[in-house]
């Protein structure tokens, strides 16, 4: 697929993200104890970089993503995008949620429209939407309602909506988690194409080791130590090789073994 002819009119340049000592503790509810979910997260993300947040289910990956998006606020540390503090629902970033979260009464095109930056005139907006639907290969479905399309298509709509404003930071919360294995691979390739066409900084939450290896420049592993509550970064791995990558390459196989090992899953590699 070639998507180099994108006539991006609204894209802002990719922005750096900085997390310093970020922690999130949820207050006690009705006599329970307070819950420490994240602590001491230290991470510098370069503009245009793709970072995968990897970890077991429920370890706080999505919570960390919500801190970066400004939909939730850390209880400790500082968090900046482009060296200024993250605002509530910060408009420099855009989120594609775990579920597509499309408005069921709006058509696919009108759902993508929701992601457009304010102050874009009608014609420009329509052009941008058409361009994005082309990018996620959904031009034919522009007039359909969410209930008339498949789960994979809905996730692509959600992705297009997140891309609509040309965000400096694109936050993806297990965007392909609910898809079947084949569709997931296609979507990963699509994301690589999109990143080439509109190179935003991407933070991708996933529990799929192969997905992280296929897409990320760096993989950040979140984990909890037995002696302390709250997840923090337990390992950062650089992934070599330009995308699209050979999923079966020796280097990736070795990294996969290392990651699975760190996640506590026997890899059976070279055994």
């Amino acid at each position: 697929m070639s998507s180099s002819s994108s006539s991006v009119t609204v894209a802002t340049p990719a922005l750096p993200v900085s997390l310093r000592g970020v922690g999130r503790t949820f207050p006690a509810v009705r006599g329970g104890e307070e819950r420490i979910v994240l602590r001491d997260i230290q991470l510098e993300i370069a503009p245009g970089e793709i970072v995968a947040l990897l970890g077991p289910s429920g370890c706080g990956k999505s919570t960390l993503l919500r801190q970066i998006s400004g939909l939730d606020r850390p209880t400790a540390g500082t968090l900046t995008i482009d060296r200024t503090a993250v605002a509530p629902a910060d408009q420099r970033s855009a989120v594609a949620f775990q579920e597509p979260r499309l408005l069921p009464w709006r058509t696919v095109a009108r759902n993508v429209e929701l992601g457009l930056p304010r102050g874009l005139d009608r014609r420009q907006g329509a052009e941008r939407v058409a361009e994005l639907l082309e990018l996620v290969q959904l031009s034919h479905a522009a007039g359909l309602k969410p209930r008339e399309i498949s789960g994979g298509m809905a996730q692509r709509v959600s992705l297009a909506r997140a891309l609509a404003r040309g965000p400096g930071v694109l936050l993806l919360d297990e965007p392909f988690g609910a898809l079947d294995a084949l569709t997931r691979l296609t979507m990963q390739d699509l994301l690589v194409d999109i990143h080439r066409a509109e190179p935003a900084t991407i933070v991708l939450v996933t529990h799929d080791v192969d997905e992280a290896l296929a897409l990320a420049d760096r993989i950040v592993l979140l984990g909890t130590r037995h002696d302390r509550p709250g997840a923090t970064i337990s390992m950062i791995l650089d992934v070599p090789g330009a995308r699209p990558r050979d999923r079966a390459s020796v280097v990736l196989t070795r990294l996969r073994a290392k990651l699975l090992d760190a996640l506590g899953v026997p890899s059976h590699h070279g055994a």
Partner: protein
Amino acid sequence: MSFDERGGAPVRRPSTEGRRSASLFQFVSGYGYSAAGRDLPEVSRGRTTVTTILLGLVLPVLILAVWWVAAESGAIPDYLLPSPPQVVAAGVELAQAGLLATYILISVQRVLLGFAIGAAIGLVLGALVGLSPLASKLLAPLLGAIRAVPSLAWVPLLTIYLGIYEEPKITLIAIGAAFPVFTTVAGALRHVDPHLVEAGQAFGLGRLALLSTVQLPAVVPSIVSGLRLALAQAWLFLVAAELIASSMGLGFLLIDSQNNGRIDRLFLAIILLGVLGKTTDALVGLGERALLQRWG
């Protein structure tokens, strides 16, 4: 006074091809089937529609036949049960006197005005209580208490405050119409999918934009259900208002006929109320389909 259990009225049945489960409101209303909260049936094939209408007419026609036979045979004296022709004749007589059209029009006008005012108030209050926890804590107990007051209890007070003309009647109907809208809208707004609301916030929608883009469209089916219930309530409260203090209208026709022993007119008034109520409900039902086509 109970006006919502009209036997024999053809009730539109839920289609069997709907995939979503039926909404709460259609069971609550007892006033005909509401399409809200489920998929729209496929555009009905002409034959099915005709069959549905014919089936719906079976019982009314049967009741009419039994009534006719019972009245004509003399088994029941006609001061207790007038025959259908006598009822028709009563209608013709009233029409010639120029009263029938006046009564119908004034009643319809009262219902529509009261319904419009009440629905608007219910919508605003419902939005406030549904969206703002503070407003909910402030208003919900008071409104709950007001709703618990039986409709007839308002009549003497409204008559003292507002006189005996249109104002107290329309006010009473508005009170009746406001609550179904208030209850359904407040409840529905409170339960709008928080995921969609958060998505709206993430894409930079402010409070008002969020309301118009996400929250209101999400509750359109509930609003429509509430409106339908409100219309039924409006007819109920109309008769309450007209029974007490009026010189015109179908409720007045009821009480006036009772006082003069005109059982034929009594039957006429009841039949007219049934037909008018069903007609306005069907009209709202048509609007409902159009709205759900767009927002459902």
